[in-house]
């Protein structure tokens, strides 16, 4: 497992994924801040108003797609040349190969979330918002990351099966819309892409009631395990397509 993980880092070391991770949250934040600055007379709730502006598009649309891009990235190298043959004949369990990819993708997404929060703090200071930085938002970002774990398990499963980089990203876009529809229909707690909206408090600041809070954690964990098992099964059972 440790070897698989270090191999993943080795593969990511000189890739330019950092640019992708930095640019997308930065632009989301920049536009959110510009909108906040232009509508300050209406948005009077300080840090929380800024959060609604910066997290709306980022959490609702772009974070799930960023997750899809990161997952496709960590599988990209295997789809080139005949690398699947190499990876699948290495003396490590197939589950370890998947787990290493899952951990690598999760850490990259955590990095993007940390960058987003850092930029949010800096933006708030630059906009001279009253009051201290709301520690609550760090919890929301972490819950968003937790919701991303099940999404990344699913996206990894797709990216491991599909050789094209773009198809899993397209799937993510369609799933985001379905998630938005289910959230509006109050069924969001049962769909992984809506759980991200709920976890990051993108559309509502209200705290979840204890039942829904418990559901958020358990449904997410359930989906994570289910998608991970599906992905490992796919790696074990299907013939590797190389070339």
């Amino acid at each position, binding site marked *: 497992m440790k070897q698989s993980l270090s191999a993943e880092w080795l593969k990511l070391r000189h*890739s*330019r*994924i950092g640019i*992708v991770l930095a*640019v*997308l949250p930065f*632009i*989301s934040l920049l*536009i959110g801040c*510009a*909108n906040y600055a*232009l509508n300050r007379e209406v948005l009077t709730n300080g840090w929380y108003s800024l959060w609604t502006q910066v997290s709306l*598009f980022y959490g609702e*649309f*772009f974070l799930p*797609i*960023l997750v899809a*891009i990161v997952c*496709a*990235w960590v599988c*990209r190298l295997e*789809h*080139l040349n005949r690398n699947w043959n190499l990876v699948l004949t290495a003396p490590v369990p197939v589950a370890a190969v998947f787990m290493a990819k899952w951990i690598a993708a999760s850490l990259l997404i955590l990095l993007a979330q940390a960058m987003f929060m850092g930029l949010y703090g800096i933006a708030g200071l630059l906009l001279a918002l009253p009051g201290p930085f709301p520690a609550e938002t760090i919890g929301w970002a972490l819950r968003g990351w937790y919701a991303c774990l099940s999404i990344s398990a699913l996206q990894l499963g797709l990216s491991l099966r599909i*050789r*094209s*980089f*773009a*198809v899993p*990203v*397209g799937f993510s*876009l*369609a799933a985001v*819309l*379905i998630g*938005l*529809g289910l959230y509006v229909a109050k069924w969001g707690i049962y769909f992984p892409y809506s759980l991200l909206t709920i976890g990051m408090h993108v559309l509502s600041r209200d705290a979840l009631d204890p039942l829904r809070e418990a559901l958020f954690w358990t449904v997410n964990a359930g989906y994570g395990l289910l998608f991970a098992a599906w992905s490992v099964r796919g790696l074990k059972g299907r013939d590797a397509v190389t*070339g």
Partner: protein
Amino acid sequence: MRVLKLEYYKIRRKKIVPMILLLLAAEMLWACMSNSLSISRNPDQAVWASILFMTASLNGLFMPLITAIVISRMCDMEHKGSTWKLLAALNVGRSRLYAAKFGCAGSLLLLAIAVQAAVMAVYGLAQGFSGGLPAAWLLRFIGGTMLATLAAAAIQQWIAMAAKNQAFALCLGMLGGFIGLTAPLFPADVRRWLIWSYYLDLAPVTYRYAESAGTFAAQPWDGRIAAAALGTAFLCFIFGNLHVARKEI
């Protein structure tokens, strides 16, 4: 023409058209459902302009992403199979191959926009919008959306062919979608520089915000924006073509 036919031949099993239709289905479902919701709250919204404006707004988000995905798939197969080198060794100029790919992608995207127009027409007739089918508006919608899409497609193809890693092309599509979605928030002077905001600027209708409520209004054709879209498409296509044709494989 033979080169263009070969492009269609290469993608015959790539399921690109079903993928476009799937994404369009999600978009149009969203547009029609939110439009129906608006009508149920305010019956004054039961006009052709409402569905046209809703679709044009959503296109700001969807079309850059659909364009990125379609073009990335068509270019990625050359990178993955190392077939660009093979094609370059044939008795066909690389510029013609590049143009054929652009033509093929453009025709698929035109099909997508035509499907959108057809869905809007069916939805409007089913809802019984007054005034009959607004053929002129639908044609202008197709033309305006296609111009903005061509500009986005030219940039996407340049990036997707120049960089083997398709993450960059898809990130650009995502940024385009983000800009397209938030375009109405920008002042007109800023929007002019962002081609992804042209989906709304070239739409046949607009929404005028008033103090308490807004109204739909016909939007006159802005020749300067159309020329800017066409110019961007032309320049990006030419520079991309030159760059890719001269780049060592």
